[in-house]
């Protein structure tokens, strides 16, 4: 388990990485600086890109204040979210938006896509009234970005829609270099008959949820005006992705970013003005600077730039994710170096996942027990590691909850 000091040390890395201002606006109210804002924008963009393949998304920016009576009606069936902010202003009571599934689903019904109901994406700031000492990005009151996609599809297409969402999530997390597994957990309250958690195993061998999706339950669906014969889906993630990347960054300083989130993909420091790598028309963002101090790379490494190249005295070398330098052939394509950096990050985290006992092939009977259980999707079948009978890859932990 991590103690408060180590949480604080991780949080400090966000400051040295120019993601957050050292002083925020209060507990749980971090302030992002331009580098961090650029990373967050890319997170929303990658999400939108992956979920708009083969589908057209409507984009909706919601209000931040929601009239209390409207919110209470929306959530009365499942009890609502914990710890919301309620405020009184100009004689009315409001909730500071914790979620926007109902509004998105209602819009999805109003914006047909090729004759069918469609998908609506919102990127907004959500609020939860949390107390406690946890530092920024691990438990925030102001959650930004809150990226939420809601989709309406005919019940007859449920299997196909779930497969599409799973496929989009797999592509998304591949680009984020986070080797996750998607786990079907079963019903959650009466909000959902089927909850899917996107689970990552950190290098500390702890499971953590980096995204979720739900098949939305009947009463909530009805509240949004989704008629019988249609399913509603709710998919979302938050800035937790950044805190997870921070926890998963090898080394002790700063942050490691996948190229999909990095505002700059490569920095080249050169002592003779030559740029020794080939910017092969990829459109990647390469920054070239004169070689100055010996540790010129440190500022960029802390910010998580994937590729750092030094050209000095006719010799070209690249700093790898493990912190070592390695020679680079002159004219090497920047695309190849960026892909190599991404692959190294993925491999580092995949090693943690594969060494963990949290995922194993078991039959239904050997998988029973206390704690959380779920089937990995898409299904992977094999012999049960306990009894040798027909089994399936499952997530099994003795923990009662994971976050």
């Amino acid at each position, binding site marked *: 388990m991590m103690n408060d000091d180590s949480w604080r040390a991780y949080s400090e890395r966000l400051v040295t990485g120019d993601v957050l*201002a*050292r*002083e*925020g*606006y*209060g507990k749980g*109210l*971090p*302030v*992002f*600086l331009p580098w*961090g*804002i650029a990373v*967050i924008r*890319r997170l*929303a*963009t990658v999400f*939108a*890109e992956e979920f*708009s*393949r*083969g*589908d*057209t*998304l*409507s*984009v*909706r*920016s919601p*209000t*931040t*204040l929601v009239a209390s009576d409207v919110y209470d009606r929306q959530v009365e069936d499942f009890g609502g979210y914990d710890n919301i*902010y*309620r*405020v*009184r*202003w100009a004689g009315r*009571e409001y909730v*500071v938006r914790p979620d926007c599934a109902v*509004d998105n689903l209602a819009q999805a019904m109003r*914006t047909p896509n090729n004759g069918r109901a469609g998908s609506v*994406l*919102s*990127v907004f*700031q959500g*609020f939860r009234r949390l107390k406690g000492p946890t530092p920024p990005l691990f438990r925030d*009151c*102001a959650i*930004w970005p809150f990226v939420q996609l809601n989709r309406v599809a005919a019940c007859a297409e449920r299997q196909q829609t779930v497969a599409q969402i799973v496929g989009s999530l797999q*592509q998304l997390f*591949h*680009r984020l270099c986070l080797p996750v597994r998607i786990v079907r957990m079963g019903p959650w309250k009466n909000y959902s008959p089927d909850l899917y958690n996107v689970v990552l195993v950190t290098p500390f061998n702890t499971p953590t949820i980096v995204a979720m999706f739900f098949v939305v339950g009947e009463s909530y669906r009805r509240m949004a005006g989704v008629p019988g014969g249609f399913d509603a889906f709710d998919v979302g993630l938050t800035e937790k992705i950044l805190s997870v990347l921070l926890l998963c960054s090898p080394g002790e300083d700063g942050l490691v970013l996948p*190229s*999909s989130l990095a505002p700059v*993909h490569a920095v080249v420091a050169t002592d003779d003005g030559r740029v020794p790598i080939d910017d092969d028309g*990829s*459109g*990647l963002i390469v920054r070239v600077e004169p070689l100055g101090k010996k540790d010129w790379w440190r500022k960029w490494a802390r910010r998580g730039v994937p590729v750092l190249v030094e050209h000095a005295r006719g010799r070209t070398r690249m700093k790898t994710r493990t912190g070592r330098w390695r020679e680079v052939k002159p004219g090497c394509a920047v*695309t190849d170096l*960026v892909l190599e950096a991404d692959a190294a990050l993925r491999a580092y985290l995949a090693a943690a996942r594969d060494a963990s006992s949290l995922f194993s092939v078991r039959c239904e009977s050997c998988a029973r027990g206390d704690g959380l259980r779920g089937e990995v999707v898409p299904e992977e079948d094999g012999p049960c590691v306990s009894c040798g009978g027909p089994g399936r890859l499952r997530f099994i932990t003795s923990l009662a909850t994971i976050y």
Partner: protein
Amino acid sequence: MFPITSSTLWSPEPALCQGVRATLDLADVTEVSSVFLLPARSRTRTRHGRTYEVRLRYPVQVQLVPDGEPAYLRSHGTDFHIIPIEWLATGPRRVYSLGPGLRVEGDEVLVLLVQSIGDAWSDKSLVNSLKRMNADVVTSDAPEYGLPCLRISAAFLDVRYPLSTQRTAASA
């Protein structure tokens, strides 16, 4: 599948935001994220031997329910303060945030808040640029931390929330 590049960057934000940011970048103002709700807390800090009350705030004050604690909601007007005193030593001193904010009329629109502490800075060209974007612009030069302070608040009346304007292109 390849990484996003600057030329392909898609944004879920209202299109106007890009123009506003470009204008602020030209004026060398640092963006900070916009935070919609601030608890109304004040603290005292000493700087150069003088004690100052630090009270980060927005123009609209509300009460939290049920405990009645005061809080501020991001809103249009010049009575705001978004630079903690600690930033004077190591952080940005000329900042802006862009995001949803309230108007006294009760609606939610795109609001820009700009604050600059400590240097002489003319706001005329920036204010004119913002007005050309159909913004209601108000300014103030009330000092903060004993230093000169310029505040600009701009409400973009063409960007009202909820906003449903964009559709991403479907790709094969």
